[in-house]
């Protein structure tokens, strides 16, 4: 059974939906999706009871709606969620966003510094279709630290 992956993005049921199947197929992940911070927190808590249901990896957008029916869209709610997920056993975290990394670099560096046991990576949605990028994303979510462009299974 593959790593259990939590994917949090307000568009995970919209335009980005095909990514779910691609992640399942390429990374052998068991993917659960949440479109908001509140839903994602609920999934984290509900799946925390047993080791085999806990999430090992997180794919998250930086900007997230707080809840499905209102709530502020904080500029870094995704970063806050990423940090919260660590105490639930998530050890591989990838940000997938259109927010440029330099916008949140201080928070990102702080996260890396505070949680050296966790693997963090950052992916830009606008380059997701570039050669090797999805493979790199899958690799990072699986806990591998290959450089971008390193040979990957294209199947």
């Amino acid at each position, binding site marked *: 059974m593959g790593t259990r992956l939590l994917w949090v993005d307000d568009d995970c049921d919209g335009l*980005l939906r*095909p990514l779910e199947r691609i992640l399942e197929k390429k990374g052998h992940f068991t993917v659960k999706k949440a479109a908001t911070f509140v839903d994602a927190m609920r999934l984290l808590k509900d799946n925390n009871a047993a080791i085999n249901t806990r999430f090992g990896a997180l794919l998250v957008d930086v900007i997230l*709606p707080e809840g499905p029916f*209102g*709530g502020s*869209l904080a*500029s870094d709610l995704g970063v806050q969620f990423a940090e919260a997920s660590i105490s639930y056993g998530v050890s591989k975290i990838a940000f997938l966003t259109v*927010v440029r990394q330099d916008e949140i670099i201080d928070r990102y560096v702080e996260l890396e510094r505070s949680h050296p046991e966790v693997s963090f990576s950052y992916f830009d949605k606008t380059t997701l279709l570039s050669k090797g990028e999805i493979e790199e994303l899958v690799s990072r979510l699986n806990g591998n630290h290959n450089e971008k462009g390193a040979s990957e299974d294209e199947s």
Partner: protein
Amino acid sequence: MTDIEAALSAHVKDGAIRRHFLSVWPVIEMILEAFSKATRLPIFVYWDGVKVFQSSAETMPAFCSAMLASREMALRCVHDGGKRALLVEPEITEGVQLCHAGMLNGRCEIDVSVGRLVVLFGSVVSTAEEALKRRGEIVALAAEQSEAMAARLRSSDSPQERFVEIAPSGASLMNAIKVIIERLVDATVEFRSLTINMAHELSLIMVGLGLLAKLEELEPQDEQESKRVRAHIVAESKLGLYVVRNFLSHASEDRYRQAVRTRFSELDLAALVLEMIDLHQLKAHEKGLVFDATGLNSTPKIKGHEEEIRRLLHNVLSNAVKYSYRSVHDAQRVIRVKSRVPYDPGYRSRRLSIRFENYGLGLMEQETALATKPGFRGAQAVAEVPIGSGIGLSEAHKIMRLHGGDMKISSRALHESTDRGATYLTAVDLIFPY
């Protein structure tokens, strides 16, 4: 961090927009400083009650200069300005307030796209009874700390400086400055913000299409599923092209007019509405929304530009889908589309309306009038929906005018939730002559 940087950080989420605004800010400061020196009217500018600009001391009346020389008194002045900016201190006449030291100050608001600046200008020494009382209180307060300070204030409260009102020339010049700054920001920050939003919207569509194609390559579908995927790709491409058309139209009306070459023909409006609803079905379905478009059958034909009517309907439907939400997970939200024929019997010409109603995020009362201003997005939308350029309704309004029609927008809070804000019933009436 400067005052303006702190204010921007607190109110503007997008770092790129903050940087764009900061690149324009020195120009705004230069304009305000020049205005202050030319009129000898001091200026304080606030953003949400926090001071972000103060003109140089040389333009201050002697009493104000004496106050600002004391740290304690200067803090009181800044705090009082914050209260006037937020209208905690009411206006005594339109656009004029009395400060804590009994000076008359003009007040105007400048829409800078990412927020509103409140400009307090003037500090004309008032001789009104309330003003004299306030100045007396300030002098008494100063005396508690330093008799020398109180003496300086008394000696600077010169009878020669006393006026009864802010000169009309100063107020009208301030109004001109306000327009210049608003236009400057529109052409720079606003336009960049809109471009970023459009790029964001289009990039998401393109990434989505690319992922669909990748998935198809990775996991060949059966014929029926492939057909569904192809239909999805066509629908998303069409939606993306409407985003582009809106942007082109907004960016250059002349260029756009040349491109679309207005051609009117007889149109079956109801059929076009159903066609555009069909285009939005997929997105609506993803959000658990359904359309109820019963009652369109008796809609008469109109004269119009077919592609522009499609773009108009796209803009209205796109908003209805984007800003609808479900209050509980299993609830089903309905977007109602209906016609009213005639719309207003007895009006000088025959008119019909197509009305779109949706439940969810809406516009507060004071925002409704701004809904057709290019780039405007309501506070709820900005807070909760990241993608949106704010030109959909302004473009829709433009298309309605092109057709000799009108557009009416209403947004009514149905129930207030203590922690989540209100749920609104928002209605857009497209009113066509027929």
